[in-house]
């Protein structure tokens, strides 16, 4: 199996690391960062050099399926509530192609083949959804920035497989448990920002996110005292704003 490492660039080492974490959907604890090139300031903005880093996955990531899930649970400390919880730890999930998992699995496999991505596809049927998980060496490209590419893939697989009524359940396309890690990461980030909002008494605007990710943030801070959240902006620019105080007392500010 290929070594799992990627190279990233950014204006600073921190920025490059941040991009890497976001694109890979990982926590700082999951990776080892090696600085390949320190950034150099140019003269009047000319001739500067970007920081170049190499990111290596550490820990149990070579192990397929089961163990990875275990690591997910322990790495974040308080086992985050899974997006699709229940029996994940007990059974790795047989890859039987039932009618409802067959079509989505085939579509994801076809797309991976066209993209020349060497990966394994595992599908599980849940009560209310079909989960298609992709495992492989080269799947960062499938995830994209902030999960953009993965969301687009999931959306098209849903439209493509459900239009004829063959599949009725919602299809979730995941890459190496990315969605679960991303959820844990968003919740942590929301809490950190919330305490900043409380101490500075100033609203903070988060980066634009998809509807399901905004929901994760709203839910995470729903019972947090001293802050309230709302979404502003349109389309791909829509984002969560965390406000100090109480929505009944404080007039929402325009941002």
């Amino acid at each position, binding site marked *: 199996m290929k070594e799992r490492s990627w190279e990233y660039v950014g204006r600073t080492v921190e920025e490059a690391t941040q991009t890497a974490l976001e694109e890979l959907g990982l926590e700082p604890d999951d990776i080892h960062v090696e600085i390949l090139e320190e950034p150099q300031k140019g003269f009047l903005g000319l001739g500067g050099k970007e920081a170049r880093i190499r990111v290596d996955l550490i820990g149990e990531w070579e192990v397929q399926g089961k163990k990875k899930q275990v690591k997910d649970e322990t790495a974040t400390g308080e086992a985050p509530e899974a997006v699709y919880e229940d029996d994940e730890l007990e059974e790795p999930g047989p890859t039987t192609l039932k009618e409802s998992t067959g079509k989505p699995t085939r579509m994801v496999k076809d797309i991976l083949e*066209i*993209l*020349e991505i060497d990966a394994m596809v595992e599908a599980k049927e849940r009560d209310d959804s079909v989960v298609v998980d992709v495992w492989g060496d080269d799947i960062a490209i499938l995830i994209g920035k902030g999960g953009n*590419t993965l969301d687009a893939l999931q959306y098209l697989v849903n439209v493509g497989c459900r239009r004829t009524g063959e599949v009725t359940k919602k299809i979730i396309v995941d890459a190496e448990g990315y969605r679960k890690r991303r959820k844990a990461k968003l919740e942590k980030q929301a809490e950190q920002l919330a305490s900043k909002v409380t101490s500075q008494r100033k609203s903070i605007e988060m980066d634009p996110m998809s509807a399901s990710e905004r929901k994760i943030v709203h839910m995470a801070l729903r019972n947090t005292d001293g802050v309230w959240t709302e979404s502003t902006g349109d389309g791909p620019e829509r984002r969560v704003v965390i406000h100090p105080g109480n929505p009944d007392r404080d007039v929402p500010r325009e941002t």
Partner: protein
Amino acid sequence: MMKELLEYLAKALVDNPDDVQIEVIEGERSVILQLRVNPEDIGKVIGKQGRIAQALRTLVKAAATKQGKNAIVEILD
């Protein structure tokens, strides 16, 4: 790779897959892919508020990035 991907995805979305046509205009750094479908299917590749078209572009762009290129998807009617 990009053409193949767009063709595959478009065919999965429409009622008349045989009418899916893609023309590729290859530039030095970017590639323009012009997608034509049966007039009845045009809504199926655009979607409400262009959401399907947007998702198609995102995936084709990911494929293009893999080849160090930029991709532009145009839907012609």
